[in-house]
């Protein structure tokens, strides 16, 4: 009896070694065929993403005379304003992302709890500004926020303040304008993920004696994290490349990286000067995305796997 399984194992092993070669070749053929199916999209990615970025990187290595040099990167250290601009960019990105989370999370939560019809009507209000030109919305904010704008004239007329608040042409103007424009990018993925949360989980929690607050904290919130993470990443990355709103709302005092790129491209006669800024932004953004993935991603996937 005992020999029987051993014999079977033996035969199996023999079978395996007999067929192994053919099986492996077959597997290889199959994976190649699958790869061939991917080829068109791989080619697209290569042609429209990898090649231009590689070219950008290549350009950034040449100085005005067309010689290979690190001059474009040395500028970051020689001129204090580059570092300052870089810091401003990330500061604005963090503040705006934070503001979007504070405003967007409750909004998305409310939308997800509303009956279907009411939710779709409310969603229209989220999406409608999304379709309006960024330039128009930025100018509208300028009208509202400036020294003789709506908010200041109301507050003064009501006797709440005597001197107008500085809301435009500085950091607060930039943050308000950008938060408004980027809010839908957080709300939409967050809403989508909240809608997929199984209400049975919440009911089960309640059933087991958790109050509404505990249910939210221990069940709903962790389950909404993947959506929040994707919203945060989208908003943050969009912030880093923002141009129109800081240019108009910052009064020339909030210079972000994209504005610096525009200045640099027109100031120097070589494309490398601007390209170097692009390369630095890309590298730092990728590094930060990696960090996000590690921090939020791990936690989010942790929640998913524990389900």
């Amino acid at each position, binding site marked *: 009896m005992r020999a029987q399984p051993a014999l079977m194992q033996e035969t199996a092993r023999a079978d395996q070694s007999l067929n192994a070669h053919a099986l492996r070749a077959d597997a290889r053929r199959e994976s190649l065929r699958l790869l061939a199916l991917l080829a068109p999209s791989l080619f697209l990615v290569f042609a429209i993403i990898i090649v231009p970025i590689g070219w950008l990187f290549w350009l950034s290595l040449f100085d005005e005379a067309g010689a290979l040099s690190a001059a474009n990167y040395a500028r970051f250290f020689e*001129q204090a*304003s580059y570092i300052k601009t870089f810091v401003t960019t990330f500061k604005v990105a963090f503040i705006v992302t934070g503001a979007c989370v504070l405003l967007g999370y409750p909004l998305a939560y409310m939308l997800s709890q509303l009956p279907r019809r009411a939710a779709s009507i409310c969603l229209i209000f989220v999406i409608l500004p999304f379709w309006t030109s960024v330039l128009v919305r930025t100018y509208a904010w300028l009208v509202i926020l400036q*020294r003789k704008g709506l908010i200041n004239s109301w507050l003064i007329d009501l006797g709440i303040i005597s001197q107008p608040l500085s809301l435009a042409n500085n950091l607060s103007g930039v943050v308000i304008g950008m938060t408004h424009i980027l809010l839908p990018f957080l709300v939409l993925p967050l809403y989508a993920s909240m809608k997929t949360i199984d209400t049975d989980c919440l009911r089960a929690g309640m059933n087991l004696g958790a109050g509404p607050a505990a249910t939210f904290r221990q069940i709903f919130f962790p389950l909404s994290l993947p959506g929040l993470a994707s919203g945060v990443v989208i908003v943050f990355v969009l912030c880093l490349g923002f141009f129109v709103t800081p240019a108009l709302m910052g009064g020339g005092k909030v210079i972000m990286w994209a504005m610096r790129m525009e200045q640099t491209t027109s100031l120097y006669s070589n494309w490398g000067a601007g390209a170097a800024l692009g390369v630095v932004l890309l590298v730092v953004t990728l590094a930060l995305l990696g960090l996000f993935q590690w921090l939020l991603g791990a936690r989010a996937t942790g929640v998913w796997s524990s389900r």
Partner: protein
Amino acid sequence: MNRTRSVSVVAIAGLMASLAAPAMAGDTITVASWGGTYQEAQTKAFFKPTADALGITIKEDTTNGLDDVRLQVTGNAVKWDITELGADECARGSKEGLFEKLDYGIIDKSGINPKLVHDDWVGISYTSVVLIYRTDVFGDKGPKTWADFWNVEKFPGRRALSGSQATETLSVAALAEGIPIDKVYPVDIDGALKSVDKIRGHVDAWWTSGAQAMQLVKDGEVDMASIWNGRAGTLKKEGAPVSFSFDQGVLTADCMVIPKGAKNKEAAMKALAMFVSPQLQANLPLYVDNGPVNEKAFETGKIPQDRIKDINSAPENVKKQVLQDAEFWRDNLVEATEKFNNLIQQ
């Protein structure tokens, strides 16, 4: 008498023939300028009359400046036959070899300031940077000079200066230090930067476009500003409570070039000759506040007498202003702008 007459007839006929050579009838050239009301004025003043006179078609496009020309020329994809630029951009592009040589046998340069006549670029119009203030804040006792603008005790209020045009703001800063208008150039860049350093804490907005400067003043976001005269004129016409003058203005020229490798060089040269001719130059101030670059335009009788005093390049007004030196900025723009940006972006 008869003889001289016939000679002049022949001369005129010859001139006409040279301007309207039969080969070019039906040619199409593309001219790029800044767009907006300025280009609309150019269409009426320059492009249409030229197209009619030469029997060619002039297509229009808009430019963002030297970058566009550089991209087209270095990329071997020149789509413009003539393009407008700022004079300092022309000087820089010339150094980089981006333009075709101009033929001053065809283009008559008389009446144009020699500083704006070069092998491969020629002036086309003038803009002035002027000091504007709101009369609802200061009455008529507002800041009149750049020294006043810098004097924050005597003239308290919110201020805006150009943050994108370092050359203009540095010229203005030199004037604020009390340097007489004929001594501003060559600009002592470090001195001018020190001057900017004094005022930068009191600047509430550094504007980056003409529209922005206009909006800042119009909405009362600032009480005084540096601004282009065209924008200042528009504000006044719209009835905004503002005042400005050409005293201590900074006169900046725009220029036109034929990008290297332009497809229709011959026709472009003839069109450019028309654009800078006194007759067509005199049309420009009828439509826009940018002054003609050819001072002979003022002798054509086309410009009404009462309009002349409002034109920045009228001889009377030129005397009150500093002419931006394009060749100075060709050599110093990059370094000066770097330092300027470092200072105001601190």
